[in-house]
């Protein structure tokens, strides 16, 4: 029994990249059904919620008696007992390495760039900082493309590592960084055409549509 805890609505800029997406995607891939519980901004500040998620973020996944946060940890955990992580021990270790790479070597610069573009675009520091940050992120992505080489997925067949990496990419949709990189663009498109991804994305977007604040 899975219960996914996420937000009822976020501004359009962030729709399609909230981090319940990798969890929904993983659950869809393994054919698990799940319930959704929505927590608004006020509730995410409450003691009760902070006891589940100390940073007040989403998602949280409840699995029978186990409550977990950190989307990549949840996806890796789901992979431990399903085909989402390769059975071969060596490939399995490589897949885990790419999940850590996505969250610790790629995501921080992706988030930093988004923070400037969405929250500090009109500040002097944001304008001065951005070019160098974008350059460093572009280099990282080039390195990633080089490592991917001619392979279709990060490790062997499609795995939990691809779910985490592709959902990190989504926070760059307002830029051309992925689409200008032919190898990464093809990799992204290959993963995002999966039926499980489409269902996961539709489910996230539908939630936001249902909870669209009425015009003032």
């Amino acid at each position, binding site marked *: 029994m899975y219960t996914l805890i996420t937000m009822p609505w976020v501004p359009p800029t962030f729709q399609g990249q909230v981090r319940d997406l990798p969890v929904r995607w993983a659950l869809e891939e393994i054919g698990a059904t799940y319930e959704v519980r929505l927590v608004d901004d006020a509730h995410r500040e409450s003691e009760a919620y902070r006891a589940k998620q100390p*940073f007040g973020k989403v998602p949280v996944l409840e699995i029978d008696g186990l409550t977990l946060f950190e989307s990549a*940890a*949840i996806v890796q955990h789901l992979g431990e007992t399903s085909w989402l992580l390769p059975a071969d021990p060596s490939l399995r270790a490589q897949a885990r*390495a790419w999940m*850590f790479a996505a969250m610790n070597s790629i995501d921080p610069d992706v988030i930093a760039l988004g923070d400037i573009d969405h929250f500090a675009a009109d500040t002097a520091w*944001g304008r001065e900082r951005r070019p160098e940050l974008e350059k460093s992120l572009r280099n990282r992505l080039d390195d990633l493309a080089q*490592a991917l080489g001619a392979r279709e997925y990060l490790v062997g067949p499609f795995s939990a590592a691809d779910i985490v990496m592709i959902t990190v990419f989504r926070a760059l949709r307002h830029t051309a960084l992925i689409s200008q990189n032919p190898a990464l663009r093809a990799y992204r498109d290959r993963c995002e055409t999966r039926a499980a991804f489409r269902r996961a994305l539709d489910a996230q977007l539908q939630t936001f549509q249902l909870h669209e604040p009425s015009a003032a």
Partner: protein
Amino acid sequence: MSKITLVAFQWVPPFAQGLVRDLRVRWALEEAGVEYEQKLLAPGENNTPEYRALQPFGQVPVYHEGDLTLFESGSIVMHVAQRSPVLLPMDQAGRAKVLQWMFAALNSVEPHVLNYTALDTFFANEEWSKGRRPSAEKTMRGRLEGLSRGLGTREYFVDRFTAADLLMTTVLRFMRDTKVVADYPNLAALQARCEARPAFKRALEAQMANFVKYAPKAA
């Protein structure tokens, strides 16, 4: 077990000594009681095509165990932990909780800690770093507050010392030139408790010994 080789730098500048991420792996191996050899990279060796084939971003550490080669310190710590009851509980739920705090360390806390410390370490002379400081500090402190609340009155993040505490301690160490961690007494106590472990001390000494040995000659 096959022979283990850890790849690290011969030398780094003083601001990074005692912080380079091979420390995490050395510490995990010391806790697990596993012997390892080291291969040290001379300046520039991390940017050769041969090395980039092992580590796409030109970083350290890289870990070899027989035919297996791994990168990303978090994943190597996890790999070592999976065969050491010292670092990881045996039950699936306990393991998931440790994994949760490992990713919290590396994705919810570390990036915001480094955003802040980089302002002094790398960007002190950049005009923009002054304007950036207030928001960087606010976000970093928000995360440490959440972390402090998440730890609460417990001694460790999951029941007893695990790989999660190991990684979190190495993240808190990035703040060593500031007084920030002292503002969160339970986090400061966690860091002190973990750094008092003999395995940590051996790991730190092993890293530092290389930097002494390979220190550039004074001009």
